[in-house]
């Protein structure tokens, strides 16, 4: 299974790679630093799954997801977000992405989320988060 990782911070991308490296059936086929690059690499590499940060320069993760949905409607997208926000999870669902994990819990949930999305199931946090007063980024 080939996975494209999109996050503007290399430390986060390397962290995701480190988690995925425990799986022999998964290969990171590409990395992107912004939303525009994600769209380009998605269309070129045609990965089996895209792991996508929301807050990225040039084009946000949500905007990139909207575009990718048009050209690659069957490729599952997993949002990797700093925000534990019900509103953002709702927005992600509206765009049509299949999963959402928060960066604070990614260590324990990423592989489970990846497995589910590769089986064309969905993965969203069960608990409802309070609305955020301000936006943080990593």
């Amino acid at each position, binding site marked *: 299974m080939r996975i494209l990782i999109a996050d*503007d*911070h*290399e*430390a*986060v*991308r*390397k*962290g*995701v*790679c*480190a*988690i995925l490296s425990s799986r022999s059936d998964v290969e990171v086929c590409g990395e992107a630093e912004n939303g525009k690059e994600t769209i380009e690499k998605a269309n070129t590499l045609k990965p089996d799954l895209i792991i996508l940060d929301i807050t990225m320069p040039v084009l946000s993760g949500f905007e990139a997801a909207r575009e990718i949905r048009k050209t690659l409607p069957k490729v599952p997208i997993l949002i*990797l977000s700093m925000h534990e926000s019900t509103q953002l999870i709702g927005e992600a669902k509206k765009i049509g992405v299949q999963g959402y994990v928060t*960066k*604070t*819990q*990614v*260590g*324990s949930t990423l592989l489970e989320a990846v497995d589910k999305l590769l089986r064309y199931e969905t993965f969203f946090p069960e608990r409802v988060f309070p609305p955020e*007063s*301000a936006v*943080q*980024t*990593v």
Partner: protein
Amino acid sequence: MKLFFQSGFFPQSPRFKQFRPEHRFGAGRSGHAGWFNAHISAITVLDAELSLVLERLGLAVDKPSGGSELKSVRPRGDAMQILVADDHDIVRRGLKQLLNSRPGWEVCAEASTGREAVALAEQLRPKVVVMDISMPELNGLEAARKILKILPKTEIVILTLHFSDQLVREILASGARGYIMKSDADRDLVAAVEAVSNHRSYFTARAADMVLNGFNAGSHAPDPGTVLRNRLTPREREIVQLLAEGKSSKEVAVSLNISVKTAETHRANIMRKLELHSVSELVRYAVKNQIIEA
């Protein structure tokens, strides 16, 4: 070589309970320790009790990450020891991978709060600490001050999300010699650790420019917030963060192992020194001065 030990590997006997480092890898049988350090790069431990035993053997045990029960243990060899502190597991993993990929460097432990970073630094005495500025319980700047007080030869690189000349000054005042943006970590992290490990300073070009411009423009006079903050003692600065994170005086007392009365006295002194009148004002002050994130 990597070893994988599971529960039951060692005999669960009374004698085992008295197991001491010198029995296996200590000076009395130095050949074992030498062989271990030369041949084993990591051990994955699947059992909490066993990890404690390995700690007693003098091996560094990483804390479990992301809720996993696994702990990785590394022998202490000749590699330069680096402690990584960030409240995000995913960032710690990434930093660890970036740093461990350099020959002769080894991330000896990870911390998820400033307080944990201080404790691990004291225990493991790393040469370099790479630390996020925004961490719960004790932020990176206060943790840096505490670490440098205990280990003045340890060098510290601070990672931040945000950028301001005031922040650069705060970082300089904390004693850290390195300051890089998280977004520039791929480009600057290795260079920063390399520089500080040779006791040289490393600031990203943007930070260096900003400080220089600030000084050239004569804007190096501290802002009123800094003047007020400088009135606080290190203990009071710690308590500002805990209160701003929503802890009560009782919770502060438990967290710092002090009496509730002492915590309340500190709280009253803080409010007086900072000229604040309510907790909401204290939270605003903490956010404005980047003691906590909004």
